[in-house]
């Protein structure tokens, strides 16, 4: 338990110092599709800003000067598969205001998505305000992809150093001394009790997913503005991995329970079959929705509370508004630190549970 206290203390200090130092002052100067030098100060603009943040982005923008409309950040590479691969930097889009030309085709960003357009960049919108233009397959190194690569790099660096440490000393010290109990925690509290004696085979997946989700969630709490696990595509992918592993691990009893439930009368067997098949799909579906919704809600709430400093200024004055906003967002950020761990734990735990149900031996 001591180790968890240490980690909690260190991460709280780290993230709060970052949040207070950068995030607070600057996060609301970033403008999305609002580059006319108009600071974000209305409810409508704040809502747009938050939903822009929750989406993936093709630029890495740290902050924007609201008065001049100048973005501080760097462009990211865009990779499009549209009649062959096309590479260019996202600076070509000029933060969504310009049409980018590549290989004779024209592309425009609308609400974070790349659409194929004509040379003038005309978009035809349908009744739901969605462009009807074609969306090419966008394999860009977006902000979330950059975040994933960063998370992967952090994981490889941390844990390969832990692995190397064992060659010198059987008992790790320093940072590895904090990491080892976490690995053992996943093994002893998540994998072994839920999967049973065959757990060793699934450790690679469970450990990777656990630390990937946890570090991604923590990275989302930094003012860098990553929102990796809040992307539905990411959680779908994670849940799909669990789904595939569960189906491929399933033994005879597992499939028998789905298609021909033993121990019940024949009519019940027929009724249960579609329910069980549905259950096969709802398990990973609950995983992906839970993770996505928790992280999205967390980001939404923290940003909304930070925005109180603007929305309440008229009613309470700048000092009271900022103070209220600071206290509330600090409080919620602490909860989000817990949620970051909890969601990683639940995802891994339920994955292990589903695998355990598939490999369980019935006697």
């Amino acid at each position, binding site marked *: 338990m001591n180790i968890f206290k240490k980690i909690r203390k260190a991460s709280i200090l780290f993230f709060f110092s970052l949040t207070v130092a950068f995030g607070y002052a600057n996060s609301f100067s970033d403008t999305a599709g609002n580059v006319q030098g108009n600071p974000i100060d209305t409810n409508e603009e704040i809502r747009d800003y938050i939903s822009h943040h929750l989406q993936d982005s093709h630029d890495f923008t740290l902050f924007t000067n609201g008065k001049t409309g100048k973005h501080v950040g760097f462009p990211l590479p865009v990779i499009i598969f549209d009649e062959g691969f096309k590479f260019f930097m996202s600076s070509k889009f000029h933060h969504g205001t310009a049409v980018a030309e590549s290989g004779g085709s024209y592309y425009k960003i609308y609400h974070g998505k790349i659409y194929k357009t004509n040379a003038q960049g005309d978009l035809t919108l349908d009744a739901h305000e969605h462009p009807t233009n074609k969306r090419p397959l966008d394999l860009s190194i977006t902000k979330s992809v950059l975040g994933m690569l960063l998370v992967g790099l952090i994981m490889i660096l941390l*844990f390969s150093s832990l*692995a190397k440490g*064992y060659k010198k000393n059987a008992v790790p010290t320093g940072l590895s001394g904090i990491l080892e109990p976490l*690995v053992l925690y996943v093994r002893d509290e998540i994998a072994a009790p839920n999967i049973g004696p065959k757990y060793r085979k699934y450790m690679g*997946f469970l450990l990777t997913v656990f630390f990937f989700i946890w570090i991604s969630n923590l990275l989302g709490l930094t003012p860098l503005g990553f929102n990796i696990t809040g992307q539905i595509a990411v959680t779908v992918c994670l849940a799909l*991995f669990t789904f595939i592993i569960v189906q491929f691990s399933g033994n005879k009893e597992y499939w028998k329970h789905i298609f021909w439930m033993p121990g019940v009368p024949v009519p019940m067997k027929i009724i249960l079959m579609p329910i069980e098949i549905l259950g096969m799909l709802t398990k990973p579906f609950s995983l992906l929705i839970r993770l996505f919704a928790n992280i999205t809600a967390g980001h939404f709430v923290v940003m909304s509370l930070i925005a109180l400093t603007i929305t309440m200024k008229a009613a309470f004055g700048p000092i009271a508004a900022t103070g209220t906003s600071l206290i509330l967002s600090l409080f919620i950020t602490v909860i989000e630190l817990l949620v970051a761990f909890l969601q990683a734990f639940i995802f891994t735990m339920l994955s292990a549970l589903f695998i355990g149900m598939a490999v369980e031996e019935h006697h």
Partner: protein
Amino acid sequence: MDLLNDFSPGLFIMQAVILLILIILMRKFAWKPILDAVSSREEGIKDALASAEAAKKEMQNLQADNERILQEARAERDGILKDARELKTSMIAEAKAEAQAEADKVVSQAQTQIQNEKKAAMADLKKQVASLSVEIAEKVVRNELTNKNKQLELVESMLGDVVLN
């Protein structure tokens, strides 16, 4: 929020590729060596505990052995001491008996010698008495030839001379 519209197939593919590569890399370079090292360490700890337990048991056995050997040695010492004591008393008794026997023998020898001496003396005396008797008889015979009274007197005087012990 429009989940279907928000779903980006490109991001999904990127995530799948990155996650797959990450799982493979982490398995090879991190999880496998870490879990192997930890489980071998746990085995080591278990073995060490077991061998410590065994050593403790052996120690106890050894101590019990020592105790037993000590007791045996003590018993042996007591036995030896007892034997020695018995030997001493028996030796003293034997010596005493021997001395007694020797003394008895000397005394009995002395007595037999005395007896023998006495017998020899008696025999000698008898011989002397016999020769004296013969002498007396000679003298008596001679005197008888002369005087009967005198003969009697002589016998009487001679008998008076002989002192029988």
